[in-house]
């Protein structure tokens, strides 16, 4: 029944969601087992490379869901989500840097290496507290969230919409990139944060830790997915979609559109931050190029390729495009930009609903009804 509480309908009604959650569960359980239980050389062994790769894809998928929530559901095309992702990543990176302790190349117990060689005498104020995991974890949520709230408050209040909003989100991430590139900022400049050793006391490169990070990513992805699904199923979700389709109409029936947009935007930013925080320990580096405007565009493209407006579409897009990138950069490095570029053009031209839309087309039960609206 349509009006039952959204929590009850989380798993019902949408095949894509069911398939996705089943797959996530399978991979989340099977991959660690295949990695740890089977010896190298066994046909069932999963290499650490593949597992890290899959873990990375999961964080990308979470990021894609975050973007899908604001773009696919709320109609805010953010070209700045890479910034939230990177901020989450930096918060985690700062924790990991503090964990190095005296094992840095200069052996300074407090200062990270890059500060030692820039002759910094003491830790800048914003680095304090990051030696504690709980604080860093809090910052992963708070920093992107607050930035999104502040930025969104300014932008939505003055009704900056559509293309204008996209462009100033891009300006936001661009400004952050320039700022983080500056060595004087105290975030390691171009080299960023790297050479991590431990996370929560465990060696970050140990197979067990890798598995734990992988599982954490899977869990975060699953929970993030369910949270977004809950939102989209709730009445608030319908309001959000109403804003996407007819913003001023929604306003005239009494909704504070700005407030809805703001909270969705902030929530999405937090999800992106969490994705970034899980991404960093798995790839081992965070650097300002994560803020590149081009990265934000790429995320949007994952969502477009997968199919915006469906959460599992965003996941599919993130995995598909990134897998294509991994695959093509290894097999046909000279041609991968052609492949990628053409893919974007084709998807926008012919698959406005992405690949999941294409899949729907072949399996939909009511093709006639769809044709009417087309």
């Amino acid at each position: 029944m349509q009006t039952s509480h959204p929590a009850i309908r989380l798993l019902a009604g949408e095949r894509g969601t069911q398939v996705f959650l089943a797959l996530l569960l399978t991979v989340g359980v099977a991959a660690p087992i295949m990695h740890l239980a089977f010896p190298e050389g066994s046909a069932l062994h999963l290499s650490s490379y593949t597992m890290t790769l899959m873990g990375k894809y999961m964080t990308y998928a979470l990021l894609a869901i975050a973007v899908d929530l604001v773009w696919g559901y709320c109609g805010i095309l953010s070209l700045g989500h890479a910034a939230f992702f990177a901020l989450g990543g930096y918060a985690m990176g700062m924790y990991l840097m503090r964990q190095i302790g005296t094992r840095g190349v200069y052996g300074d117990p407090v200062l990270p290496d890059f500060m030692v060689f820039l002759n910094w005498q003491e830790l800048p104020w914003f680095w304090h507290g990051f030696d504690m995991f709980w604080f860093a974890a809090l910052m992963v949520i708070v920093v992107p969230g607050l930035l999104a709230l502040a930025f969104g408050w300014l932008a939505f209040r003055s009704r900056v919409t559509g293309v204008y909003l996209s462009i100033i989100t891009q300006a936001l991430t661009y400004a952050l990139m320039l700022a983080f590139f500056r060595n004087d900022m105290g975030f390691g400049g171009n080299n960023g944060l790297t050479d991590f050793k431990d996370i929560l006391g465990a060696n970050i490169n140990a197979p067990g830790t890798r598995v734990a990070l992988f599982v954490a990513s899977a869990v975060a992805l699953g929970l993030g997915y369910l949270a977004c699904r809950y939102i989209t199923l709730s009445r608030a979700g319908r309001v959000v979609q109403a804003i996407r389709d007819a913003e001023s109409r929604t306003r005239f029936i009494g909704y504070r559109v700005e407030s809805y947009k703001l909270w969705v935007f902030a929530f999405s930013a937090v999800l992106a931050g969490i994705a970034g925080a899980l991404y960093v320990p798995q790839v081992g580096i965070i650097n300002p190029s994560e803020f590149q405007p081009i990265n934000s565009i790429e995320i949007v493209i994952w969502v477009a390729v997968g199919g915006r407006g469906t959460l599992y579409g965003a996941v599919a897009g993130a995995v598909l495009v990134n897998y294509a990138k991994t695959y093509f950069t290894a097999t046909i490095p000279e041609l991968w930009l052609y492949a990628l570029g053409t893919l974007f053009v084709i998807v926008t031209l012919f698959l406005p609903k992405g690949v999941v839309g294409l899949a729907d087309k072949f399996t939909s039960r009511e093709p006639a009804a769809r044709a009417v609206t087309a």
Partner: protein
Amino acid sequence: MTNISCTLFAVPGASPGPLFLARRALGWLALLLVVGMLARPAAAAESTSFEQALGHLATANFKQKERAVGELLDARHANTRAVLNALLEGTLYYRKDDRRVFIAAAQDASLRLLDPLTMSDAGTAEASDYTKITTNNQLRKTLKSALASFDLADPDANVRLAAVNELMRSLDADSVSILRARQSSEKNDAVRTAISTGLAIADLDSADAAVRLAAVEQLEGSLNPEAFNRLSALVTKADDGSYAEPDENVRNAARAALNEIDNWRSFYRTLETLFFGLSLGSVLVLAAIGLAITFGVMGVINMAHGELMMLGAYTTYVIQLLMPQHIGASVLVAIPVAFLVAGGVGVLIERGIMRFLYGRPLETLLATFGVSLVLQQIVRDIFTANNRPVETPAWMAGSLQINEAFSITYNRLYVVLFMLIVFAILQLVLKKTSLGLKVRAVAQNRAMAKSMGVRTEWVDALTFGLGSGIAGVAGVALSQLTNVGPNLGQSYIIDSFMVVVFGGVGNLWGTLIGGMSLGVVNQALEPYAGAVLAKILVLIALILFIQRRPRGLFPQKGRAAEN
């Protein structure tokens, strides 16, 4: 000439430094000038020493070459100047087997030789049998200084002015006396002013306080940096509390002069900042104005706009390859060609992709982003990933020297002018032609325009082509300022969007004023905040500005603009 005052000027530890040699050249020349005898002494003894000195040039050792130059000057041979000139220009060679020196012009793999002793034709020879006599910075400086003393008597006032300036780079007793000798006979005002400034600087060392005072007064208002340095030195207190200038009156006069110079310098620095800002703004406007058309008029977000500029820049490169003998004209030829190339690609993009996406601006963004990737890779495959060398024509190099504290570089000046011309032409096209009328009609009300018989498809294609073509033209300008490589476009795309949004979408004047003001603000901030922080501040200001005025400086008004 004696060298008593040498210690005042000599560079310690640089013997036989360039100044020393220059002095020798000058000394000899001063003699010639003072006697007023520019005839050519051709005694046999001079020929011999000249020939020996020439032989000493055939070496790899720069110090030895510098000595040889001194010997050449001492030889006072009629052909000394020609040889030094050839050495400076890299047309002096020696034969590998007997180390004989020739002036030579390269013709493919062979050399056309000229005997420096007689200045007569010595036939042609295989280039591989000869070695070019190379120079380094110090040697070139020496040569230029030496040649300048020859040029003081040149009939062309500009050459004389350049020679005076060259001599002032290394002022000493000898050059002072040459300048003094020249001062009386010099007719040209600019040259005479330059000479008196130089002499006044020299007079600051006079033992007579009255002469020093007169020199200080002469230097009042002079923007010559050397004058400023010397005056500052006069009033700087040494550690023991004494001054370099013992006379109180001279010191006061120097302070007054410095004060005035300072005022002028800061005035010119402000002018300079303004010009820097305007030129940066012009680049921004050029990059953005095509976008203002495709984005503002058509509502298309063209992420491949930067790549269209890149195509324009590469077009310039190709044109230069096709006409290597006419680099000066190549840039002018490139402008219309780049317009057609980029415009043509633009029309292809419009016909192939854009026309399916009207009314879905955000999706045009994604599709054109794909196009930009493809265009970049095509360029990489054709021209490799490396940057391509685009030459700057001679008429665009260098700067317009307004005075010694303020000069305007030609390439920036031309970019400003070029931008204004492009802007004016665009305004004309949009306001005065039937295409412009149709473009504006379609922009304001597509359905209405269509119903009135405007072929909107055709107008769309041409509008997009126009915007893209202007991007190509901007690329030609950029090729003169920055790298021509596959990544050229990416560095400008965000800035361009900012300019358009800041100025107000759909308003070309907004783009012009927006771009110019962003440029000026950026340059005004740069001395205080540094290049990066200035840019960040500008971006933040822009974000805040858009919150206050979501539709830019000059918003399109009316109900139609609401949606």
